[in-house]
C-alpha cells in the first residue's frame, strides 16, 4: 500500500535523439545525391530576402550549360515552383503544410520520386525562415543564407546560429541600402564576428556584376566538388 506513495516506479533509459533521425536521413540523401552526381545547395533566408530571385538568376545563367533542378519549399503555395518551371528546369514543389522548414524526410521522399541522375546542380529553396531550418540537415553539399538589407542591420546578430552553420552568406538588395539606412559593411562585419571563415557576397539584382559573382560562386563550388569526386 505504501508503494503508491513512492514517486518513482522504474526508470527506462531511451537515449533516442530526435534530430539524429533527421541526420540519418540526411546522410541517406547525401548518398543518393552523390550517386546521381548532383551538387546540392540548400538556400535559406527570411521571407522576401530574395531567395527565389537569386536562384532564378543562377538558373538563367547556368541552365544552358548544366542540367539544373530545383526544389521549391513553401508552406502552401506553388508560386516559387511556377517561377522556376517557367525557366525550363526540372522543378519539384515541396509543400511543407504546417512546417516552418524543410527536413531530411521531405527531401528524401522527393528524391525517391524524382530521378536526378545526370543532373549537375540541385537548388533547394528552404521555407522563408532564419531559425528553424538550421536544426535540420537536408543532406545538401552547401548551405547558403541570404539576408536583405531591408531586414535591418541587426538581423544578423539576432540570428547567430544560421550564420555560424552556413557555408556562404549573401547580403542582398544592396541597391536600396541607403534608402533603408543600412550600411552593408556593418552587416558583413556582423557575419564575420560570428563566423570568421564564411565568405560573404553583397548582391543586388540591379547590379549585374554582383549577380555574376553570385553565379560564379555557385558554379565554382560545383566544379570543385566534381573535381574532388
Amino acid at each position, binding site marked *: 500500500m505504501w508503494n503508491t506513495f513512492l*514517486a518513482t516506479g*522504474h526508470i*527506462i533509459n*531511451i*537515449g533516442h535523439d*530526435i*534530430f539524429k533521425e533527421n541526420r540519418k536521413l540526411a546522410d541517406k540523401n547525401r548518398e543518393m545525391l552523390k550517386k546521381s552526381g548532383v551538387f546540392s545547395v540548400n538556400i535559406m533566408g527570411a521571407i522576401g530576402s530574395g531567395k527565389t530571385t537569386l536562384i532564378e538568376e543562377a538558373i538563367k545563367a547556368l541552365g544552358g550549360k548544366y542540367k539544373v533542378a530545383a526544389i521549391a519549399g513553401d508552406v502552401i503555395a506553388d508560386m516559387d515552383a511556377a517561377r522556376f518551371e517557367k525557366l525550363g528546369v526540372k522543378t519539384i514543389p515541396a509543400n511543407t503544410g504546417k512546417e516552418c522548414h524543410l527536413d531530411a524526410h521531405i527531401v528524401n521522399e522527393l528524391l525517391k520520386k524524382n530521378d536526378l541522375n545526370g543532373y549537375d546542380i540541385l537548388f533547394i529553396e528552404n521555407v522563408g525562415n532564419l531559425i528553424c531550418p538550421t*536544426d535540420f540537415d537536408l543532406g545538401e553539399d552547401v548551405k547558403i543564407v541570404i539576408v536583405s538589407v531591408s531586414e535591418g542591420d541587426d538581423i544578423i546578430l539576432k540570428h*547567430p*546560429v544560421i550564420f555560424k552553420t552556413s557555408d556562404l552568406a549573401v547580403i542582398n538588395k544592396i541597391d536600396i541600402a541607403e534608402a533603408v539606412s543600412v550600411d552593408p559593411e556593418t552587416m558583413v562585419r556582423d557575419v564575420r564576428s560570428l563566423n570568421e571563415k564564411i565568405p560573404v557576397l553583397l548582391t543586388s539584382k540591379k547590379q549585374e556584376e554582383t549577380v555574376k559573382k553570385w553565379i560564379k560562386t555557385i558554379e565554382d563550388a560545383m566544379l570543385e566538388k566534381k573535381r574532388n569526386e
Partner: protein
Amino acid sequence: MHEYSLAVDLMESVLTTAKENNAKAVNLISVKVGRITHVNPAQLEFCLKSIGDGTIAENASYSFEYIEPEIRCVCGYAGKPNETADDLDMLEYLVSLVCPLCGRNTEVIGGTELVVDSIDID
C-alpha cells in the same frame, strides 16, 4: 517554431518504449536539449503535455537538461567551451563560444541534439 512536430516524435518514442515495458503510467520524462538547437524547453513541454493528454503519459512530469556544446578550433583544440552562465540568451551564448586556448571563434561540433533520455514508469 517547430517544437510541436518535435514533440510528436518525442512522445511517440516515449509511448512506444512505455508500451514495450508494459507501463501503466509514465511518471517522469527526462529530455536533454542541445544548447545550440533552437528548441525552447518551455514550449516543448507545453506541446508534450497537450499531445500526451489522454495517454498513459498524461500526468507525467518533465525534466529538461541542457547538453553543452562541443567546439573545435583552428588551433587544434577540440572539446567543451569554458563554462558560461545558464541564463545567457542564444546570442550572448554563441558569441561566448570562443576557444579556451587561443580565444578565437570556433566551430560547433556538438550540442545539437534533442534526446529522450529516460522515462520513469509504473
